[in-house]
């Protein structure tokens, strides 16, 4: 075997090896992207589910099917819809509304964000559970990868109200910020999606602006 043949073999091995590396890199990138795209899709679907649920509930703050026959459970006085929110801070809110089947009795609803320690079994260190509690019953939740759930409250003059807000009737509109991430991701590259509801004004709460 001559020197030229050896050179040919060595050259082929180098080029073959380089091509093999390229193909493997391509395969790795394709796999990573496949996982990322599925993750991104899941994140966006989760965010949309959350946004729909929150908007549906928050828009009905203060709603009651038999509005003129209801007594406020906290004051035993006739219920005033503009005072439906009885506690609010940056990541939780409690209010009165009339939940399905809209039977005219006042229900309490509470949203709050759990601690990150509850989701320590997931690879994402930031994910938390957003809880929904009806009438003080057991909290209902699923881990949709919420990493941020932040609310800002505004009064009738559109000024920010510092949390916690315990004075009833103060809040007229709410800014909602939600960030959702994957609970697990390829190579820890978590996708995220963001929802910013700059103003959500429940009809029953904001309408009181004209009454006052």
């Amino acid at each position, binding site marked *: 075997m001559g020197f030229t043949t050896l050179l040919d073999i060595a050259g082929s091995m180098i080029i073959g090896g380089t091509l093999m590396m*390229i193909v493997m890199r391509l395969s790795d*990138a394709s796999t990573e992207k496949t996982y990322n795209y599925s993750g991104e899709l899941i994140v966006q679907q989760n965010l949309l589910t959350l946004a729909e649920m929150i908007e549906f509930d928050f828009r009905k703050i203060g709603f009651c099917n038999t509005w003129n026959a209801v007594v406020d459970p906290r004051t035993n006085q006739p219920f005033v819809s503009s005072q439906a929110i009885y506690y609010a801070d940056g990541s939780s809110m409690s209010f009165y509304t009339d939940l399905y089947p809209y039977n005219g009795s006042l229900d309490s609803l509470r949203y709050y964000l759990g601690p990150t320690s509850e989701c320590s079994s997931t690879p994402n260190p930031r994910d938390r559970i957003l809880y929904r509690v009806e009438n003080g019953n057991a909290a209902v939740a699923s881990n949709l990868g919420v990493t941020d759930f932040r609310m800002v409250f505004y009064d009738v003059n559109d000024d920010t109200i510092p949390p916690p807000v315990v004075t009833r009737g103060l809040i007229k509109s709410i800014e909602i910020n939600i960030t959702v991430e994957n609970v697990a991701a390829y190579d820890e590259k978590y996708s995220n999606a963001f929802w910013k509801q700059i103003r959500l004004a429940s009809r029953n709460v904001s309408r009181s602006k004209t009454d006052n």
Partner: protein
Amino acid sequence: MNSGQSLFAIGALLLLSLTILRVNNNILLTDSMMIDSKFGLIANSIATSLIESATEKYFDANTKEGPCLQSALTYPPNKESGETKPFNFDDFDDFNNYTQTDTVSSVIFYSKCIVSYINPDPENVGSLNNSVSTRTWNKKLNVYVTWRQNQQTIGFSADTVKQSTIYSYWFF
């Protein structure tokens, strides 16, 4: 290596190069679609916010104190002097031609609102989309949000999110 083998090698490399380019192209295209989809969500939230903000206002500047005649409604829909931002708008048609920019995650979103009178006809669904040049008890707000174009082209680019709402006047 004879010339036949060389040709095969060149052909193989060419095929590999084309495959890599195709895969890269697909990855970039899907990335772009994913980003558009993500920004579309934010654009939708901005549009919803503007609609929320508008529908909590009075129907018209002349219905603030109570009912008025149809002929007394503001025409064309427009804001009054001193009203510049949604927080000092007092009625629905102040949002006509209102524009705003929001920066979310370093991306600038341009929004534009158009308010017009409409005359809904139960037998003609299309009437909900046709603005009329007379005063009616129904106003329609169209909100356009985009993250690519400047404000002058909002509503004309394919990636503009459009949301609408109809606001009617009722007095009991």
